[in-house]
């Protein structure tokens, strides 16, 4: 509707800043056991790095990073990672989402629970990133900014 003129300086700044935000998001997800962080915060940071390119560059540039039809399968993959972890634990004889029954050989039950928390946090991060980007894409559908 209200079309802004395209500014190359803003686009350059966004392209410089976006990969570092994405790396910091993965760091927050992986390192969430020892410092403040976790799946929700890391997923929101990943979504912020994708939305920065989309706001600064418009659809033509954003199509090179993550395409619009790819967000729904990513959200499904995130939910399925979480659910499959619970189902595998239940198939191995534990309760639903009981990580100490996961079939990884050679680990004590405490470290198995540590690994289970890590797996489900990757799932949460993917789902949160995909859904926040999906809301933005549906709201600006058919119109081009910047």
């Amino acid at each position, binding site marked *: 509707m209200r079309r802004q003129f395209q500014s190359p300086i803003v686009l350059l700044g966004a392209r410089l800043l976006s990969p570092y935000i994405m790396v910091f998001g993965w760091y927050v997800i992986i390192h969430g056991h020892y410092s*403040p962080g976790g799946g929700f915060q890391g997923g*929101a940071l990943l979504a912020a790095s994708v939305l920065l390119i989309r706001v600064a560059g418009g659809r033509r540039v954003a199509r090179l990073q993550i395409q619009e039809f790819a967000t729904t399968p990513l959200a499904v993959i995130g939910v399925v990672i979480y659910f499959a972890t619970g189902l595998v634990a239940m198939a191995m004889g534990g309760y639903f989402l009981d990580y100490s029954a996961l079939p990884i050989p050679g680990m004590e039950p405490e470290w198995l629970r540590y690994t289970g928390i890590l797996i489900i946090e990757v799932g949460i991060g993917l789902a949160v990133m995909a859904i926040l980007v999906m809301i*933005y894409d549906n*709201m600006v559908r058919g119109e081009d900014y910047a």
Partner: protein
Amino acid sequence: MIWELELIIYIFLALSAVVALEVKDLLVAVVMMTIFSFLMALLFVAMGAIDVGFTEAVIGAGVTGILFVVVVFQTSRKSND
């Protein structure tokens, strides 16, 4: 918990909330809403809830601000009250 710092942040929170509701230009209201979220994240960290403060700083100031700006650009910018 440092109670003098929390008292100052509380007063600024109430001020920014009132300004965000009373201003006529909707873009200014969105910016005041972002300031409100940042002060709230600062207050959470001062109370010791670092995870909640981190989440509020990322989501309340980043993603919600972008969504508000998109809605204001797609609809009208002026408000009658």
